[in-house]
């Protein structure tokens, strides 16, 4: 485990994340103004989707489809237990939004985990990218049901119908780009896939490093909001990913994923969405406060996962597989 933590921490993308956090801490004027971060995140989604599609074409099999179906179902039920827990501290809309956020997934955490596997020379298959896409929205739908639980239909004037929400979450820019790139990777001729490699793979780690530099700054800037939110919510933001990772670990073992795929799956379970789910929640559950669900996902859970979470989950897998 310690050597995995070190291997991860000496991974340049993670170091750049820490550099970004440092920059904010020492009040540097370092800044990546918009739309640079947007460009990098679109690039990362395109690249990971395309790569996943290319690999999926070669390696799709029945077991993978089963795994994806189970991942999807897991994302749909996970909000339930978290909602029940969170209701002790939060009102209904906020508990529902937070549960949805944590049951949904973070693409960049996934990408960092696959970079980690690359660094330690550990294989994994492409189909988990599809999992990334498929675990995004069931949690969102469940979250919306929870937010409306017990509500009279007439009240939700500000809210949205399920059909609208499904549309919203499937047409969310990141989801669409990821799914679209996956499909394009699946369809592309091998020769074409080869010519895209310098773009989708060559500069990938560099772009990830630059993006994580920015994410380090963004996460660190949320620190003062964190103080306002209080310790018990921060404890949730540390505890929930660990519990979710444990759930993911058990499921991965039951469906006999390889250890590389298991890590990616566990990371999906442990990660919290800070793009698609918050975007959907803001539309669909306007009563919930993004200062809570975005700040915890971005300011606590994301840093936790990319720095110590990934190697922790990997060492758990190594001792169980």
């Amino acid at each position, binding site marked *: 485990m310690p050597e995995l933590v070190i291997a991860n921490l000496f991974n340049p993308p993670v170091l750049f994340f820490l550099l970004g956090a440092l920059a904010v801490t020492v009040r540097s004027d370092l800044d990546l103004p918009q739309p640079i971060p947007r460009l990098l995140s679109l690039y990362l989604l395109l690249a990971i989707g395309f790569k996943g599609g290319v690999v999926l074409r070669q390696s799709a099999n029945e077991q993978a489809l089963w795994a994806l179906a189970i991942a999807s179902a897991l994302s749909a039920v996970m909000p339930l237990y978290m909602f029940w827990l969170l209701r002790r501290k939060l009102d209904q809309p906020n508990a529902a939004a937070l549960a949805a956020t944590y049951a949904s997934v973070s693409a960049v955490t996934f990408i960092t985990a696959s970079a980690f596997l690359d660094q330690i020379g550990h294989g994994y298959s492409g189909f988990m990218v599809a999992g990334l896409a498929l675990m995004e929205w069931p949690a969102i739908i469940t979250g919306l049901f929870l937010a409306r639980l017990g509500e009279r239909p007439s009240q939700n004037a500000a809210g949205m119908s399920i059909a609208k929400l499904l549309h919203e979450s499937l047409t969310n820019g990141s989801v669409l780009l990821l799914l679209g790139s996956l499909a394009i990777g699946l369809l592309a001729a091998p020769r074409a896939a080869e010519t895209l490699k310098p773009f989708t793979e060559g500069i990938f780690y560099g772009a990830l490093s630059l993006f994580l530099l920015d*994410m380090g700054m963004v996460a660190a800037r949320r620190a003062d909001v964190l103080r306002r939110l209080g310790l018990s919510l921060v404890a949730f933001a540390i505890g929930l990913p660990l519990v979710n990772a444990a759930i993911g670990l058990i499921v991965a073992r039951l469906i006999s994923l390889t250890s590389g795929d298991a890590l990616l799956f566990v990371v999906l379970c442990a990660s919290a969405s800070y793009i*698609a789910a918050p975007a959907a929640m*803001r539309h669909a559950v*306007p009563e919930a406060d993004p*200062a809570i669900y*975005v700040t915890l996902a971005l300011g606590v859970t994301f840093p936790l996962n990319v720095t110590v979470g990934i190697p922790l989950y990997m060492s758990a897998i190594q001792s169980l597989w």
Partner: protein
Amino acid sequence: MRPIKRVEIITDSVEMTHVIRVLEQQGVSGYTLIDSVVGRGERGMRRGDDPSGAFQNSYLITTCEPEQIEALVAVIRPILQRRGGICLVTDSWWLRH
């Protein structure tokens, strides 16, 4: 030139599409939008730096006839009440072309 009300609204980017829909229902003749501005208000600092856009503001300028302003204000107010932001109304002259 004729007198006109200059209306400016600063609020959540996600809410702005809603604002625009409401303005168009009121029949405003046009509007101008600056997609992303930084700001501070009751909800603290909003830099537009997070990937979900949850903390991004947009800035909109529009105009309306003096007699229209009451109706406009009536539809804008609930949106700002729910989501925060500000709306300023200023007396101006419009150079009719």
